[in-house]
């Protein structure tokens, strides 16, 4: 089950590494971010927010943007309560650190097949973590050597990934209303507010609007 997630993780990590090199992070910083954060989409968005050097304001922006992009982990964690609830808290919270989209998907399938061993969750997370951290290195080295990243479309990596990840999320037009709101609000905000706040404001507006529309 875990094997199916590997190619996507490798590509995603390499793309992150490439972008990190172009944004002026050192290899150590790029690897440290992968090792400590372990959240692909949030790292790619954070690189767009990243400034060289960092200011206190950038640090605050990074924390907020990361929390918003990773807010889906809140829902995933909530779904794990019935499973991990019987464990001692320290084990449950340790296992929760394995939460990424891929681990959670693997775990949901494992649970559906009747599995109940929480170490499967931690093990899948640890495996993906190792792949995620190491695969960023060749991507970084590649990124550092390419003089004109735009020529190869590497400046578009973030939206290309998001467009690809968007397709499996499709659940019909009703759910998409919230996404349309997010896109329109973000576009409007991008003209008015400098920086990358349009992602945060647009995403929040869209998911709140969607939650109310879907409730009827």
């Amino acid at each position, binding site marked *: 089950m875990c094997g199916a997630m590997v190619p996507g993780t490798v*590509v995603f990590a390499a793309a992150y590494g490439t972008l990190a090199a172009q944004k002026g992070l050192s290899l150590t910083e790029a690897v440290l971010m992968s090792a400590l954060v*372990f959240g692909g989409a949030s790292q790619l968005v954070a690189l767009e927010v990243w400034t060289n050097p960092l200011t206190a304001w950038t640090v605050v922006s990074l924390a907020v943007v990361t929390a918003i992009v990773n807010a889906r982990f809140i829902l995933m964690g909530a*779904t794990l309560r019935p499973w991990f609830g019987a464990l001692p808290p320290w084990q449950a919270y340790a296992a929760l650190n394995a939460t990424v989209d891929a681990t959670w998907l693997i775990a949901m399938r494992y649970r559906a097949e009747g599995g109940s061993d929480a170490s499967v969750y931690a093990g899948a997370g640890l495996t993906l973590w190792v792949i995620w951290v190491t695969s960023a290195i060749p991507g970084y080295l590649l990124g550092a050597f390419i003089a004109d990243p735009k020529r*190869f479309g590497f400046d578009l*990596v973030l*939206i290309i990934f998001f467009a690809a990840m968007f397709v499996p999320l499709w659940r019909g037009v009703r759910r998409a209303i919230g996404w349309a709101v997010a896109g329109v609000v973000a576009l409007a905000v991008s003209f008015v507010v400098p920086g990358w706040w349009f992602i945060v404001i647009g995403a929040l507006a869209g*998911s709140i609007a969607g939650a109310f529309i879907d409730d009827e």
Partner: protein
Amino acid sequence: MMNEPLAHGAVIGIVAMAVATLMTRAAGYWLMGHIPMTRRVRRCLEILPGAIMAATIVPIVAKVGAVALLAVIVAAGSMMVRRNEFIAVGFALAAASLARAFGI
């Protein structure tokens, strides 16, 4: 003061991101042990991933223009035909490089 360069800024920034992520990983689990999650909050969180993607893609495509639109369409189209990130990203990057080589 907020806009002055920070000493060890990169490390502080990365740690701030790590703490923010730790909180999201623990919060839902913790919360479910204390209060039941309402349907509305659940829906809000379900829609959030797609909303983040839409809120990122639309303004960037509007700013960058035709090449970005092409890359997004190729990536999504490829995923619709075959669910493979390798192929989708490869095609989209190739389409963007070709379009730029031809001066679009």
